[in-house]
Each structure stands twice: as C-alpha cells, then as structure tokens.
C-alpha cells in the first residue's frame, strides 16, 4: 500500500461503513459484527505497545472497563450527551495509562505486565466499592432515543465501532511507518542499545500506552449502550485481556495487519459458535491456539501468509 493512497483507503472504508446500514437491514449481522469490530479495535490498540514496543499489557479489560464505566456513569447517571461521555471515557482511560506508565514503564517488560494485572484488580475493587457505579450489582443503562440517522441504535453503534476500528487501523499503519514505530521496534529488539542510539524509550512507551489506553477506553465507552447492563466481574475479566492478546498474537504481532486478521478470524469463529469470551471452552481453545502458534509460527497468520507469498506488499491479504 503506497503511503499516499492510504488516506484514500481510509475514507473509502469509513464511507462504506457509514452507508452499509442504509442498504443492508439484518439486525443479527450488526449485533455480531459489532463485537468482532470491537475486538479488531482493541487488538489494534493493544498492538501499538504490545506488538511494536514489546511491552505486553495484560490489563486490556481494565482500560476497556474504565471507558465503559466512565461513559455509563456520565451518560446514565448524569445525563451528559453521549458523544461527550465517550470522549471523556477515552480521556480518563488515557490518564489511567499515564499513571500505569509512570509506575512501571521505566522497568522491564515483565514488571509492566504484572502492573497491568494489578491495575485491573485495583479498578475492579474501586467499582465494587462505589455505590454510584453500581458496586457488585452493576448498572442498568437507560437507552437513548432512537437516533435520527439509521433509526436503529444497533446500526448506529455498528457504524461508530466501524469508524473507531478504521481510525485505529489508520493510526497503527501511520505509526508503524513513522519514526515512532521505528523507535518502538528498536526498543523492543534491544532497549539498552536503542537508548544508546538516541531513542527516547520511556517517552515512546508512554505515548504508545496512552494512545492505546485512549482507544481502548473509547471502545469500552460504547459497550454499555450495546449491552444495556454492565457489572464489574464480567467487564474486568482476565479472559477479555487474554482474548485480545491472543487475537493479536495469532494474527501477527507487531504488524498493522496482524491484529485485524486475528480479531476477524477468532472473533468471527466465536460469534458463529455463540461462545462467551470468558467461558471455559472459549478460553481453552484460545489458549491452545496461542500455544500452538507460539511454538510453530510466532509470526502468526500474517507470518504464514508472508512466507507463502513472499515479501511483496500484502495488499491482497485484506
């Protein structure tokens, strides 16, 4: 994909997503695709720090959940307009990323991973002990009035999530080809050497974590509107973080295409099989898939495609 064509692809995709519900009226499709797209966006966001930078975030559900609760609280309890609630959710999630970043991104990757696990526990505890956020009982979301465009909430949500995914992919593609991506990949390969070569490692990791957190928060902020009810056990579940990580890994970690492929493939299978992401069966299959790929093809599906079709541009893969 040539650089100067990319913005065009972006706009065409956005337009496609926006127009689709006008012509295709199949509610089940939108309900299912929303979840698949949600995982596409989460995986692409995760990959920014995890794939390019090599710092694995095991707390995706924390950022996702923070976004969901902030927007649910603002929209539901305070009556703030949805769009503002969504942006605020992203901002809080980004701030959360800053805090975790300052706590652990100056240390080795292992400590960051552990810190994200701890952060998930912390946020979950905060929600459980805050009556205004529903505590253990959860929050029921009052549905907004049917939107003027599309006339159907699920179609609007689909378009929103589609847009977020496309924008995330665009950001990821841009980062991969920019100096930020180059710096992240250098520090992933050898952080000490990268520092000696002038790469501001902490700053880059922090940027990646904050951007990743913002995107995850925005994705999470739409979830309450989709599902109608949120509670702290399922939304902060480790299984969500695990799922996102494996999707990126299976698809091809550290490439802009990888998370898309992994989320589309695994997400679609999960939707078709109607499994709950956090259920035993799903987790077992996902974990097994991860181990298989980890041992035989760490480059993921994208790695397999690249090996089969050579190093030419992978425009055909999408």
């Amino acid at each position, binding site marked *: 994909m040539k650089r100067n064509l990319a913005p065009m692809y972006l706009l065409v995709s956005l337009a496609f997503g926006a127009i689709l519900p006008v012509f295709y009226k199949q509610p089940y499709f939108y309900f299912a695709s929303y979840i698949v797209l949600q995982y596409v966006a989460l995986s692409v966001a995760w990959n920014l720090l995890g794939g390019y930078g090599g710092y694995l975030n095991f707390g995706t559900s924390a950022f996702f959940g923070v976004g969901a609760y902030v927007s649910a609280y603002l929209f539901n309890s305070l009556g703030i307009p949805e769009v503002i609630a969504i942006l605020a959710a992203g901002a809080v999630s980004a701030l959360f990323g800053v805090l975790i970043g300052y706590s652990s991104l100056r240390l080795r990757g292992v400590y960051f991973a552990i810190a994200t696990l701890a952060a998930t526990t912390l946020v979950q505890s905060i929600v459980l002990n805050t009556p205004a956020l529903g505590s253990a009982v959860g929050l029921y979301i009052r549905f907004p009035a049917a939107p003027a465009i599309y006339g159907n909430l699920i179609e609007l949500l689909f378009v929103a999530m589609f847009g977020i995914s496309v924008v995330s992919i665009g950001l990821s593609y841009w980062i991969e080809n920019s100096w930020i991506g180059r710096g992240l990949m*250098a520090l992933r*390969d050898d952080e000490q050497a990268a520092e000696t*070569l002038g790469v501001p490692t902490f700053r880059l990791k922090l940027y990646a974590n904050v951007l990743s957190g913002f995107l995850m928060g925005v994705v999470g902020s739409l979830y309450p509107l989709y599902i109608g009810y949120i509670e702290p056990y399922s939304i902060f579940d480790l299984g969500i973080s695990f799922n996102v990580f494996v999707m990126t890994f299976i698809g091809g970690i550290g490439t802009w295409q990888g998370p898309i492929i992994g989320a589309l493939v695994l997400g679609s299978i999960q939707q078709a099989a109607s499994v709950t992401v956090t259920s035993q069966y799903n987790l077992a299959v996902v974990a097994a898939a991860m181990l298989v790929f980890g041992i035989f093809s760490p480059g993921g599906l994208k790695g397999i495609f690249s090996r089969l079709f050579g190093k030419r541009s992978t425009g055909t893969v999408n």
Partner: protein
Amino acid sequence: MLDAKGVTKNFGGVRALSDVDFRVEKGERLGLIGPNGSGKTTLLSIIAGTIRTDKGRLAYKGRDITRVSPHKRAKLGIGRTFQIPKPLSSMTLLDNVIVPLVFIRGLHNKDGETSDVALELLQQVGLSAKASLRPKQLTQLELREMELARALAGKPELLLLDEVLAGLTSGEADDVVELLRGLNGRGIAIVMVEHIMRAVMGFSQRIVVLDFGVKIAEGDPEEISNDPEVLKAYIGE
C-alpha cells in the same frame, strides 16, 4: 571534555568500581586497560548512561550529566559500542544504522536520503554489501563492525569503544585503527577499552589502568608499560 569524579558502583555484594576519577580531554586518544573484571566496561556504561553510578558526579562539556538518560547523552555527542554486539534483530543491517540517524541526527524525511547516509557509514566499516541482511545472518566480527557504524552514525564527539578489535586479524585490526585515527583527526575523542596491548599502546596518547575497580595508574604508554604496579596487576592474575 568529560570529567568523572568519585565514580562508585556496586552490583549486589560486588564492588565493580571504587571512587574512580576519570577525565577525557577534547580530541584525546585514551586507552582504558586492566585485567578481566577490573570494571572497564562498567565505567564505559556509566559514562554512556546505561548504568547509573552509585556515588560521584559526571560532567560533560561543563554540564552535569550524572542523572541524564542515555538517549540524551547520545544526542549530546557520546557514542559507544558494546563488547558483545547488541543488534536490533528484527531489522536489516541498514535499518540498524538508520535508527541513530533518525534519533540522534534527526534525519527523518526523505527516507532515500537517510538510506544513502547509512550506506555510506556501512561502507566505512566495509559492510555495505550486506546492508539488506538481518543480523542473524552476520558473523560476530561483522556485528562488531555494525556496532562501530551505528556508534559513528550519531556523529559523536566522544566515542567509547569496548574491545572493538577483539578477534580481528592483525591486518584487520590495523585497518580499524587507521579508521579511528582518521576520526580522531577530525576531532573525535576516543576512549578505547582493549586487551590487545600492541594496538592500544600504539593508538593512545594516554592510558588509564584499572584493577578490581580501582584506578592504579595513569600516564602515557611509555610510563605505563614500565609501571611495576601495572605489571603486577596483569601477571599476578
């Protein structure tokens, strides 16, 4: 140009450096020698910023850099090579050299141009033919040459070399020393940590000797070769 005072470093229970004073003049050729484990690499790492000193201060061109991070020191003009090469393994040799061009010299735009500069640097160390290869396809020697090319990419004013001649044939070593003399001629101060006595004695204007983390001698190569303390440190090993 570089002034380090009272540098002390402990690793767990092991004292790697004790109260070492170390200075490098502008454009100087300095040799840093000593038996294995004397703290030479630790000292280089502290100057480069990869390791923080427990006690003491470092000043570079008059400015206190004791707490300055390594990437900022690289931008200030301190370059270093690693004793065991640390390649960026997911990138090609060319891309390895492009990283410091982007981050130290700020050559972001027009990738074609940056690649040309990178290729030129590889040519200086004789690796231009292998530019599109991955580090795992290179020999240890070639990786060490990569280290040198990367360090030079940042246009350093102070170059810290950690055993850059190890394993080279005497002809190859002479070539590298020639290259270094040329760089020095352009005003780059060079600190050479080396075990190959002939090379380091021939190259350096001044020698500093470490043993068990303590500076035991300092002077020009002639004085050092005859210093009984130095001989004792090496032979009494």
